């Protein structure tokens, strides 16, 4: 028997409200399938299942608020019978649920419009494939092809159209409280130290411009993925900035999942993870970043993306600031900031040139590292950015 529990949704979210089930009793699910949509103070989150199995029973009703760790459903493993699993459900139901959680009354805003009654529709194979990739529900797509058929363009425009924001004022208030709680915790508990360093980007920007000159807009590279790769590579040499501080001790993470701080339209902030950046090439990171930003703002994040960033990168350069003084997301132990890339006077071979320069900064946890190591880490980020060719290749 598999007990499907509400997974961790990041350090600052300890509960969620079930919006809808994407599966029902008798459905078989595979590892990675989206099985439920859960609302948090920040966004509606798609929750994946991490086991193969068959749904035996759903234990939570939509509209109910539950703490992280609550058993939401019970799955049958291969070879198990319903009777065997049923016998264990009562014990699971009897598990104590933390007291602080109340049931939310009716009227919980749903971020997802109810699906229309199923009907047979003409859908081009390319559109069906793309819909699966973009996780667009075909029932919600208006078809403009012959006889109302759903075309590739229909799917892509449906994917690009954000869902209506749920109950804005209440969400905004709740999100502010969530951010405040996490940041107050951080500032209270974590002895931050801050370092900053100017990094010339002539090599990096020229490298990107040369590649983009011959690329279609659909394959165009941004600078941000190169910055993320530079941070990930530097973390390999300085692992004390990558991981979690919990229960009085630091545990370095084996992989680098970079949390990307994304400002939400209408206020607020989410920092979902680009997972395993080290083993992805630059085009993959670029594509995933564009997708992550679009999905974050459209409210279709996955639980796994919120649960486990091992470090965060925040780039406020587009807002025109020179230096970011970031605050660590607990239980992480470091956060890297990048300001605006601008042409600045820079000494080269005894002369002065105007070069694109960015100020990179880091806030790190003094319980885990010291400024000396922080300075070496930041220098390694800058060094990496002088060799974009090496950053562009994913490690095997």
């Amino acid at each position, binding site marked *: 028997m598999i007990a499907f529990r509400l997974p961790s949704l990041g350090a600052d979210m300890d509960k969620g409200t079930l919006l809808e089930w994407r599966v029902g009793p008798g459905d078989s699910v595979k590892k990675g399938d989206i099985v439920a949509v859960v609302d948090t103070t920040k966004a509606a989150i798609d929750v994946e299942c991490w086991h193969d199995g068959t749904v035996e029973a759903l234990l939570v009703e939509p509209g109910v608020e539950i703490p992280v760790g609550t058993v939401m459903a019970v799955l049958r493993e291969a070879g198990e019978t319903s009777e065997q699993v049923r016998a264990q459900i009562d014990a699971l139901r009897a598990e104590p649920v933390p007291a602080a959680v109340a049931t939310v009354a009716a009227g919980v805003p749903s971020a997802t419009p109810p699906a229309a009654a199923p009907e047979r529709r003409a859908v081009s194979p390319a559109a069906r494939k793309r819909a699966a990739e973009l996780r667009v529900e075909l029932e919600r797509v208006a078809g403009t092809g012959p006889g109302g058929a759903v075309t590739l363009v229909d799917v892509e*425009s449906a994917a690009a159209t954000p869902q209506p924001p749920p109950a804005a004022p209440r969400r905004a208030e709740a999100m502010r409280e969530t951010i405040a709680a996490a940041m107050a915790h951080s500032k209270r508990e974590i002895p931050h130290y801050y370092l900053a360093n100017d990094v010339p980007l002539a090599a990096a920007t020229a490298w990107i411009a040369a590649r983009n000159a011959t690329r*279609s807009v659909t394959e*165009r590279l941004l600078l941000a993925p190169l910055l993320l790769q530079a941070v990930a590579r530097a973390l390999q040499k300085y692992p004390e900035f990558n991981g979690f501080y919990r229960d009085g001790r630091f545990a370095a993470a084996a992989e680098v999942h970079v949390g990307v701080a994304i400002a939400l339209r209408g206020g607020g902030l989410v920092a979902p993870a680009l997972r395993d950046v080290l083993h992805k090439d630059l085009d993959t990171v670029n594509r995933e970043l564009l997708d992550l930003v679009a999905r974050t703002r459209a409210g279709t994040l996955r639980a796994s993306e919120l649960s486990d960033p091992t470090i965060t990168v925040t780039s406020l350069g587009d807002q025109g600031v020179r230096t970011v003084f970031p605050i660590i997301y607990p239980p992480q132990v470091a956060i890297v900031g990048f300001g605006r890339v601008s042409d600045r006077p820079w000494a080269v071979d005894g002369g002065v040139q105007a070069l694109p320069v960015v100020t990179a900064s880091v806030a790190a946890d003094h319980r885990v590292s010291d400024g000396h190591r922080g300075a070496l880490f930041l220098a390694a980020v800058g060094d990496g950015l002088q060799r974009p060719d090496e950053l562009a290749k994913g490690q095997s």
Partner: protein
Amino acid sequence: MTRDELRATLLRCLSRIAPEVDVDSIAPAVRLRDQVDLDSVDWLNFLVAVHAELGVDIPDADAARLPTLDSLLDYCGARLGVS
């Protein structure tokens, strides 16, 4: 396609990226990124949407020279033969 239809299409692409924007209030000769909160990811997603809608692939070097709605209209209009 007329210039008005082209304008409507560009604004539709913009409102997909920035749904909070009142597209009627966009000043055509003022930099879009001064009027709308667009970061570099939004801007690229906007160009991708323009490519998908109109088939106009705006090269990186040209995109930097198209900061306003008017300049985008002129550029896409010329590429599509819209007067």
